[in-house]
């Protein structure tokens, strides 16, 4: 493998370009019409336009991606995350075209992609799972009786889903049917498959996931990431390690994740997501058969480059991870910067990036796919960038993230930066007292907070800016000056020229 086509866009495409270059491989970027000037295109060695802005005609089009691979002479394909990353048919098409697929085998994607099938296989492999349906629901009546049997609250999920799309929590029988309809329609739009299933909803669990890495000889785990800070099932902040995971619990959860991966013949990097209940019991949710958004926090505490390991494994090389037991070192936190407007109910905001000053300094990593002049549109995911920090311990990591967030300046589109600032300042978060419903209870963190000192600063700044602008327009005559005398007359005449 010499030349890798990256079937993705944004920050992950740039991340993969960087890994390719460090591995001595050439990188081929693909781009829709909307992404012609994106950083991932500029960073790559080759760039191939693959269609209009709409993802179905570009980043989701298998024929166009294969044509791009052929045209550019690529001999490997990395799917990134999202788009076609977990589509077994894409992995097969890449293999079929004689190219190297940088990811797990299609059979493993298929086994884990169908959530109900995955549950059956995990149960058989002895991996703990949440009580619920093992088959997609066929009608509302069956759903009702199953919900009665396992008891409310229950959660409705898309069978082909992930990333929070097509999910609904149902607390009472009368909410079940509307939830089934909504989840089904969202699932159909996002994944082209409307089937949903239902399971027991565990209250106030943490979302803890285990990173696994498998080559032809070994399957290992690289500890946990805690991703409990979620809004509407979308992760916003991730950290590694987790305050709720001791060394012994890490080994137990790690062993379960390795068993899950082995059960489907896994290769490459993957993640097993678990719910960790307050009593220490944990339940397998699903396996993401791809590199994940939040992979950098694991990289920072384990000193591993997961994307480079994916490239090595795809080339048939052994992973470069030591075979002795591994332990996390220090603490890493990631904040997802999204184009969601806190002042507008966290709805997506669009616009052109007019100015960007990313944070820097010790322990700061900025993984971003945007630059000044890029347009943020509604065609793609709202995540603009990931801000990741490392520090020797959690309090220092929080302080460092707070500092880095203060340095970040992005103008042109509203973002959730202020939310991250408020979260880092929050006492409950600082104590690690979080679970996946944290933000449901703490919606105050989502909204801008009045700050009288700040308001005075803004008012003075605006008044000074207005004053300077007026002076620049009319150098001497001001609205409250009388403008009499020779200098005033001269200024008026100058202003009229």
């Amino acid at each position: 493998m010499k030349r890798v086509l990256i079937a993705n866009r944004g920050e992950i495409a740039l991340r993969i370009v960087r890994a390719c270059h460090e591995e001595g491989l050439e990188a081929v970027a693909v781009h829709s019409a909307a992404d012609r000037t994106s950083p991932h295109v500029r960073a790559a060695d080759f760039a191939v336009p693959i269609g209009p802005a709409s993802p179905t005609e570009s980043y989701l089009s298998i024929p166009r991606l294969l044509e791009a691979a052929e045209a550019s002479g690529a001999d490997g394909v990395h799917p990134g995350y999202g788009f076609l990353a977990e589509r077994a048919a894409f992995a097969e098409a890449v293999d079929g075209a004689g190219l190297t697929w940088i990811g797990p085998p299609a059979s493993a994607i298929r086994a884990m992609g169908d959530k109900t099938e995955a549950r059956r296989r995990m149960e058989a492999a002895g991996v703990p799972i949440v009580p619920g349906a093992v088959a997609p629901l066929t009608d509302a009546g069956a759903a009702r009786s199953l919900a009665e049997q396992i008891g409310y609250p229950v959660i409705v999920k898309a069978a082909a889903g992930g990333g929070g799309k097509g999910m609904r929590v149902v607390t009472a029988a009368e909410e079940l049917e509307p939830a089934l309809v909504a989840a089904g329609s969202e699932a159909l739009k996002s994944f082209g498959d409307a089937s949903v299933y239902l399971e027991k909803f565990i209250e106030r669990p943490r979302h803890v996931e285990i990173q696994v890495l498998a080559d032809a000889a070994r399957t290992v785990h690289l500890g946990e990431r805690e991703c409990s800070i979620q809004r509407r099932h979308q992760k916003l902040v991730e950290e590694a390690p987790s305050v709720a995971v001791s060394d012994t619990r890490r080994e137990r959860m790690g062993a379960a994740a390795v068993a899950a991966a082995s059960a489907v013949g896994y290769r490459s990097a993957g993640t097993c997501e678990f719910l960790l209940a307050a009593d220490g019991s944990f339940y397998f949710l699903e396996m993401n058969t791809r590199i994940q958004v939040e992979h950098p926090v694991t990289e920072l505490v384990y000193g591993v480059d997961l994307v480079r390991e994916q490239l090595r494994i795809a080339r048939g090389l052994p992973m470069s991870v030591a075979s002795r037991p591994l332990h996390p070192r220090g603490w890493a936190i990631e904040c997802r910067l999204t184009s969601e407007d806190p002042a507008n109910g966290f709805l997506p905001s669009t616009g052109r990036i007019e100015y960007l000053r990313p944070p820097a300094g010790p322990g700061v990593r900025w993984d971003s796919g945007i630059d000044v002049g890029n347009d943020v549109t509604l065609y793609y995911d709202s995540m603009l960038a990931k801000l990741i920090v490392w520090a020797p311990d959690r309090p220092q990591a929080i302080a460092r993230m707070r500092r880095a967030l203060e340095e970040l300046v992005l103008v042109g589109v509203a973002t959730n930066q202020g939310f991250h600032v408020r979260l880092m300042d929050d006492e409950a978060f600082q104590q690690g007292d979080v679970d996946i419903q944290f933000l449901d209870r703490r919606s105050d963190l989502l909204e801008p907070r009045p700050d009288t000192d700040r308001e005075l600063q803004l008012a003075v700044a605006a008044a000074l800016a207005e004053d300077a602008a007026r002076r620049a327009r009319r150098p001497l005559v001001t609205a409250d000056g009388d403008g009499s005398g020779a200098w005033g007359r001269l200024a008026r005449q100058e202003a009229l020229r």
Partner: protein
Amino acid sequence: MKYFVSAGGREIEVEVDGEQVVAAGRRVTASLTTIPGSPVRQLLLDGRSVALPIEPAGSGRWAVTLHGERRELEVVDARTRHIRSLTGDDRKPGGPANLVAPMPGLVVRVQVQPGDEVPAGAPLVVLEAMKMENQLKSAGPGRVAAVRVQPGQAVEKGQVLLEFAAPAP
């Protein structure tokens, strides 16, 4: 020169005389320096240094982006403010506001019909954007006077989706 700066319903009086500024009755020393090649300006307020991206947003209006949150402030001088108070050009009487699209998107479902009486928080329209369905709810009680969109329709930010009238007495 005396200015009145308003943002989010609050008004702060700021008198500027070079670097001598009286803000909300407090006498301070303040200066604002433009950082070349950027919208960022460095505010020095009694020695405290704050970097703020400030951009003009139309006559007398300034947009400040702070931690990703964009806020518009309006700066008027005393004379303009006085004229406005005479012409009564400050506030219109409030009625139930129409439902407007908070973002560009696709109408998935309209959950009300003309004539429906809805309480505060009632589901009105489902709008899809960025592959997520967003439930728009009523801000207060009201009666639906007209439905201006239909499912499948693409809408722009700010477009009126539903018209409201006061609830029947």
